[in-house]
């Protein structure tokens, strides 16, 4: 549905994004994540035909964002960062205007406006001027304008930024509801938000894609990169070291301390999988004292931070 090939954008000598390539299949919800200034908004502005790339191509539904700009714009619903709206217009008047310019058939305008207001739960504020709405409602109105012509693609740039926790939950569930059969690209710098909504993540840093994968694959990586924490007592010298050699495991760290006059060792072992059962069995069989054993998986957040700091 969305294909980006080697997208590069320069503003003067400043490179905003470089060689960005990705594909989004129909019905997928993809999260663009990266620190502030990483190039997320630039990618979205290229995809929404706000500006062309300096190099590379992008297409939506088979239409090029530069050559077939007007067609592509009908295909997408865009939610720009900060939910900019015409404050001097009442909600209903504004949505009617958007429906008209987005090419909704005249006889369907009233129906579509009513429908999106119901979906976004803004019917009760339909006659209120946008400037008097709370931030949460403004976000909803902005989402409503994005879906007024029922576009197959939604591009949402930080839709929950600046909202209180309750509003964040409401807007997230609204996005989830809106996605349905639509293809959605969502940008955020909050990983928990992306992982709660999206199927796939594209991590961007300093204008480059540094990782792109499905949430489940990234979670598997996180699991694989976990550590086994082991706390033992009454062990022979190099007992755990020999055990790790036997099982081909690497010891990341070893700590030693005295508790109640007894030596206690704490090991962090690099584990490919949760092999607590194997290790605990060996320790008990050898007659050593096992005080604590647990698997500490790394989170998506840890992977993200690791990737962007590399």
């Amino acid at each position, binding site marked *: 549905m969305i294909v980006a090939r080697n997208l590069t954008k320069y*503003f*003067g000598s400043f490179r*905003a994004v470089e060689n960005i390539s990705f594909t989004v299949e129909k019905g997928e919800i993809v999260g663009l994540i990266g620190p502030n200034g990483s190039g997320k908004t*630039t990618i979205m*502005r290229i995809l*929404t*035909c*706000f*500006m*062309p790339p300096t190099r590379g191509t992008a297409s939506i539904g088979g239409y090029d964002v530069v050559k077939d700009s*007007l*067609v592509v*714009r*009908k295909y*997408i619903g*865009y939610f*720009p*960062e*900060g939910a*900019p*709206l*015409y*404050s*001097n*217009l009442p909600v209903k*008047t504004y949505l009617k*205007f*958007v429906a*008209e*310019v*987005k*090419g909704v058939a005249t006889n369907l305008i009233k129906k579509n406006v009513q429908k999106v207001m119901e979906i976004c739960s803004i019917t009760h504020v339909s006659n209120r001027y946008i400037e008097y709405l709370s931030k949460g409602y403004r976000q909803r109105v902005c989402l409503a*304008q994005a879906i007024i012509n029922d576009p197959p693609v939604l591009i949402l740039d930080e839709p929950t930024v600046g909202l209180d926790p309750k509003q964040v939950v409401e807007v997230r569930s609204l996005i989830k509801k809106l996605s349905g059969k639509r293809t959605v690209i969502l940008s955020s710098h909050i990983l928990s938000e992306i992982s709660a909504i999206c199927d796939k993540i594209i991590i961007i840093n300093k204008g480059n894609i540094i990782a792109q994968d499905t949430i489940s694959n990234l979670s598997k990586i996180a699991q694989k990169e976990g550590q086994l924490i082991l706390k033992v007592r009454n062990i022979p010298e190099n007992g755990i070291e020999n055990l790790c050699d036997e099982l081909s495991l690497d010891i990341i760290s070893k700590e030693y301390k005295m508790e109640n006059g007894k030596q206690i060792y704490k090991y962090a072992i690099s584990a490919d999988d949760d092999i607590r059962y194997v290790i605990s069995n060996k320790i008990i069989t050898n007659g050593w004292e096992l005080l604590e054993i647990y698997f500490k998986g790394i989170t998506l957040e840890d992977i993200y931070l690791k990737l962007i700091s590399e």
Partner: protein
Amino acid sequence: MRNFWSLFKKEFYIYINFFILYAVITIFLLLSGYFFFTATVRFDTFLIDEGVSITEGLFRQFFLDMVHVVCLTVPLLTMRLFSEEKKTGTIELILTYPIRDMEIILAKYSVCLAIFLLMLCITGIYPFLISHIWRLNIAAILSGYLGIFLIGCAFISIGLLVSSFTKDQIVAAMVTFGICLLFLTIAFNAGWAGFTGQKILVHLSFLEHVNKFGKGVIESGSIAHCVIFTICFILFTKESLKSRYWRGLK
């Protein structure tokens, strides 16, 4: 055409909820009324006995004064056109709707022009009142109004362009006023430019054109000057909007 009409309605709705509009209309009518009054008194006191025609003695002066009022008020009308869209970020939204840039520009321009035309029509009450006292040369008066209208068109196009450069409405108004004033008075003391230069400056000066229109002289050169000027500035605005391609949303 549907897009244009939708944009026009939207812009018009925003304008009528823009309190400065009413202040601008009030200032425009107060100043034009005052200048009409002073021109009438001057004509009645000094010129009528000298056999000067009403077109020459009253209306030419009135239109020359009016063009300054237009120069003052048009920047206040145009200052929000693109500046506000840039400030609030709605420019990003509207430029990603399936609309051509030119449709947006023309809709904004047309709304401003319609409001300006409305203000100008209200001043039609002055010659209407005078027509009860003196016999008027209607054609000459219409010629004067045509001149003011064409210059208004040109000034609005300047305001349109300037507002596309900045997020700040005050800056947009000030710069527009400066440019309008420059094109109005560019032929003042133009002797320094030499014979040809002076001729060029005189032709560029809107004051010279309004002087001719005010006398009831409609020259194709004057009309062409205003029309070409307006078209050029509208096209510059289109290029200015395109600057987002290389400078983003600054």
